[in-house]
């Protein structure tokens, strides 16, 4: 009896083995359903909604319009109004600055860690991983404790008689930018480290033996060979930052100088209930991000080619 069972099993296994198509389909099906149903169709709905007329808190599928896209650059009277355009540009600018600062700080740090001895390396990379895994909200909230008006920094400066009036650091673009760098730096350092750690450091000596200066060695040898880490880190920082709204909300409180496109979209959905406008904004945001990534890949690959020649 038992043997029969096993034979049956083997039969089924053999049947599946002869049909790689069946295996592939079986493995693929759950992912296909999950993504088709809960990712592709929802995105198509967003596209649809972005062309409907505003109706608070619901979707009016009977009235189609291009107004949502038009109103991204005009005001009620139909004149050019850069309000949303400025918010978009600010988000891109913040994301770009955050990425560049994270790269400038993170690259030397990753290099420093990669050149330590094995024990130090493990300890330091753990110190980078802990904030990476720690709740982003908690970390941003910790900054609030320090930088708000009644916060630690102000009270220390006041006690030390360095300032007479508490500084207004909250709600400034500078603090939001600092919060973004603080929040996303680990996302930059980890891929950079993974890339630099694989690098053969004797190449640096080879380059210098051949007469290259420090900076030329870094630019012509180290940087091109660790480019995958630079690309991965930049994308891991840029994308979440450009669509982020938690940092600018907690540290900027949506003041006019810190409002990002994420805040605006969130407001359309969760406050003013203008879903069509929010949908149009989010599609433009998605398009901008994809475009930025394509351009970035082109440039990064171009750099690599240029260096290899």
């Amino acid at each position, binding site marked *: 009896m038992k043997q029969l069972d096993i034979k049956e099993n083997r039969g089924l296994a053999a049947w599946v083995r002869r049909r790689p198509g069946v295996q592939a389909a079986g493995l693929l099906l759950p992912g296909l359903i999950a993504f088709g149903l809960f990712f592709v169709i929802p995105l198509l709905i967003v596209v649809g909604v972005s062309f409907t007329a505003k109706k608070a808190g619901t979707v009016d599928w009977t009235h189609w319009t291009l107004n949502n896209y038009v109103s991204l650059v005009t005001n009620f009277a139909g004149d050019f109004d850069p309000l949303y355009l400025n918010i978009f540009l600010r988000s891109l600018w913040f994301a770009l600055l955050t990425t560049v600062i994270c790269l400038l700080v993170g690259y030397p740090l990753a290099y420093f860690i990669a050149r330590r001895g094995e024990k130090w390396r493990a300890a330091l990379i753990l110190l980078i991983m802990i904030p990476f895994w720690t*709740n982003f909200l908690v970390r941003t909230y910790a900054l609030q404790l320090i930088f708000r008006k009644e916060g630690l920094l102000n009270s220390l400066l006041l006690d030390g008689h360095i300032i007479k009036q508490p500084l207004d650091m909250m709600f400034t673009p500078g603090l939001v930018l600092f919060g973004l760098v603080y929040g996303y730096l680990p996302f930059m350092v980890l891929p950079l480290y993974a890339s630099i750690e694989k690098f053969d450091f004797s190449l640096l000596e080879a380059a210098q033996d051949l007469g290259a200066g420090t900076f030329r060695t870094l630019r012509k040898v180290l940087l091109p060979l660790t480019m995958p880490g630079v690309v991965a880190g930049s994308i891991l920082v840029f994308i979440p930052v450009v669509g982020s709204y938690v940092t600018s909300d907690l540290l900027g409180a949506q003041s006019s100088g810190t409002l990002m496109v994420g805040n605006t979209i969130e407001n359309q959905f969760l406050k003013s209930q203008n879903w069509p406008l929010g949908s149009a904004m989010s599609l433009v945001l998605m398009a901008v991000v994809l475009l930025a990534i394509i351009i970035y890949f082109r440039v990064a690959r171009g750099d690599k080619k240029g260096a290899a020649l």
Partner: protein
Amino acid sequence: MSAINYNDKPGQMNAAIVAKEQVAGHAQAGSGAQAISRPPARLALPAWLGNLLLKSNALVVFLVLYLPVVILIVFSFNAARSGVNWTGFSLDWYNKLLHDGNIGSAAIKTLIVAGFATAISTIIGTMTALALERHKFVGKVVFEGVMYLPIIIPEIVMGLSLLLFFRAVGVDLSLVTVIIAHVVFCIPFVAVIVRARLADFDRRLEEAAMDLGADELATFRKVTLPLLMPAIIGGAVMAFTLSIDDVIVTQFTAGVGSTTLPLYIYSQVRVGITPVINALSTIMLVASIGLVLTSLFLQRDPAGKKVK
């Protein structure tokens, strides 16, 4: 500094040659025909200065990363109700935390969501990785592109698209919709991690098992799965962390009664600062440190232990 040993590293030697050519080529291109007789101009940073810069950069970064967190932890033990003056050690906030029903239920909901989301996305992600790495099928490139899209597009777009979807099909927002959303955004991360491991998987091990009489199922269970385990666990830990930390997608897909811990914290810190949140944050910090250490421990390569 250290002696360069090229003898046992032919690959590195080739790379070194390429590097030499790059540098030499550049020097020649820069200074024309005379370059052969003239040493190229070099700008060398003294080693001690370079080291000093690297060290101070690292020191500042680690200070900036950890100082706020340390301050948060210290103030969670502060007796003062508000402000930053130290008025004495106290466990009051932790006590309040334990007796706060809202936080307790939010924590339980967070764990329910994370548990389901991790289990489902790890299974689907692993299956998808196997399909992508080991099979050819029509539309593979398109499927890959779509599947990695959740990593690339801003989270907020995913959140609102699911909100509109659930409204369109008339599904009420609840913990289930949150779980569905988390599963979808976790799958790509699991798939990427498992696929990376599959890419350098030695398939001869599977062939050997089959030659020795194991069928597909036994081979998968006894050979493939154990070898993939570190990556699967890594993916699961990633999914778990993404899920318990998520604010953005959850905010769009959570119904009235489905406030998770991050949503609760977000609603609280938006209004102002309460020491209870300090205590809660401290506990979450300790939990994440524990999670990192556990995942590192679990992800150690089992290959060394398995061979008897």
